[in-house]
């Protein structure tokens, strides 16, 4: 289904950084020298989780003649914003700067990325918003970067990858969650791995297909950690958005964590509420990929089993390939749900989206 009549809010797009060179103007002088001294500006910090030329990551008609898909704002306008009459679009950068082992280098590059995105994307189109890119290995430095960027209301979310060095619920991450909750910024957990651990307890797969499919399970593990460690108890106002996570795995997941909780609750006694309730209240998912079943009837059942009309947020996941043409909304969604997914739920999840319009017009 083509969502353009609704002027949707697109909650996941990926602007590409062709090489680190494009970040040089946005780095502090010290880091500019550090990077050029080491020849790192020529590096393409592509994530293993997202090989840029894989068919899944660059829809054929969205590939430019040269360079990676998603690098050109004019094409992004043409392919997405103008095609879908998009109201707002949230840009999520997927780049290896987030996962570098050296915390300070990672933080410096992430700072550069956030300045770059403000100058070359957000400043050039009032429909665009962005997540704050942060060094995943250092929650403290990540929290600092969030505080720095938060003044610009066009930054609407903190971006993490779902699989890092330690599960995202761990207390070491809490300085970041404290700041995010205080500032009213959702934590966007995007598919992707620092690949410090194999995708599962059974080791490293051979194929990208397998890695990508297993991402859904990675989200299950991440959410479990946030629940069991008590993130939502400690930070009850924190919103978490699972981005590019898949959708249809959710009901079976909810059934299983509820069942486990009834018997194992005593190990983590701060978990007083049924986990599915916490998830429905605090967690959201973007709609692409949907991992659609074969029939519309199955879609209907899955949506009923998800049990909340507030959880889903529209996304195209541009330029990743999950749908053809303008068919960005999965088939089989009930009409009363569609507007919620396309507009209401994103507005409710990201209160800053509309605020920055007001801010912009104040400046004009």
């Amino acid at each position, binding site marked *: 289904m083509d969502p353009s009549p609704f002027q949707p809010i697109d909650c996941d797009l990926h602007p590409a950084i062709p090489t680190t060179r494009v970040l040089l103007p946005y780095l502090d002088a010290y880091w500019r020298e550090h990077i050029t001294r080491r020849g790192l500006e020529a590096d393409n910090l592509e994530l293993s989780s997202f090989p840029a030329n894989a068919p899944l990551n660059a829809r054929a008609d969205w590939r430019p003649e040269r360079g990676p898909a998603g690098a050109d704002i004019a094409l992004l306008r043409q392919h997405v914003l103008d095609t879908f009459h998009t109201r707002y679009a949230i840009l999520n950068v997927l780049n290896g700067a987030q996962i570098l082992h050296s915390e300070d280098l990672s933080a410096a590059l992430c700072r550069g990325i956030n300045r770059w995105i403000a100058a070359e994307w957000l400043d050039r189109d009032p429909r665009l918003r962005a997540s704050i890119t942060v060094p995943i290995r250092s929650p403290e430095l990540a929290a600092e970067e969030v505080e720095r960027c938060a003044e610009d209301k066009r930054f609407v979310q903190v971006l993490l990858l779902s699989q890092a060095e330690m599960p995202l619920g761990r207390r070491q991450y809490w300085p970041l969650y404290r700041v995010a909750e205080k500032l009213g910024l959702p934590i966007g957990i995007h598919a992707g791995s620092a690949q410090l651990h194999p995708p599962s307890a059974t080791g490293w797969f051979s194929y990208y297909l397998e890695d990508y499919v297993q991402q859904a399970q990675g989200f299950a593990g991440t959410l479990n950690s946030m629940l069991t460690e008590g993130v939502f*108890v400690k930070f009850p106002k924190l919103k978490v958005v699972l981005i590019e996570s898949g959708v249809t795995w959710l009901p079976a997941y909810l059934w299983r964590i509820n069942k486990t*909780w009834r018997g194992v*609750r005593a190990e983590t006694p*701060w978990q007083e509420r049924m986990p599915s309730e916490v998830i429905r209240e605090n967690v959201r998912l973007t709609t692409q990929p949907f991992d659609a079943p074969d029939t519309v009837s199955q879609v209907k059942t899955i949506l009923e089993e998800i049990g909340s009309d507030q959880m889903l947020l529209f996304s195209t996941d541009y330029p990743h390939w999950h749908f053809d043409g303008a068919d960005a909304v999965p088939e089989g969604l009930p009409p009363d749900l569609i507007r919620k997914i396309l507009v209401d739920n994103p507005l409710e999840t990201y209160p800053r989206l509309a605020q920055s319009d007001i801010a912009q017009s104040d400046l004009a």
Partner: protein
Amino acid sequence: MSRHIVASVEEIAPGTCKVVTIKGREIGVFNVNNEFFALINRCPHQGAPLCQGAIVSRLVAPSPGDYRLERSGEMLRCPWHCWEFDIRTGQSWCDPGSVHARTYACDVEPGEALAKGPFAAETVPVEVEQKYVVVTV
């Protein structure tokens, strides 16, 4: 309904349970700090012999890492899937969620944040008469 002596008071020491069969039903009689309570010996989840479970305390934590032991010896833990039941009332301490069909209202007790589940272990009235523990079945 008739009344049955199940034990003398000394027979069931504090913190223990005696399982008896009355009118074909197994009943666990508990001494909780010298008060007596009785539950039908059947877990509402999958029919486990509930009264063979462990008598435990309520483990709570208002915040992650802040562990508190409350209501020592007042909870019964199903020997199978570890569901926890209040020996006094039979109520299970898991949140019912909103989707199940329910026959009970879910009350929230004053001062406690937990909602009681619909899965209640069936209680049996117990009295102490002179030196005997008496159940009504």
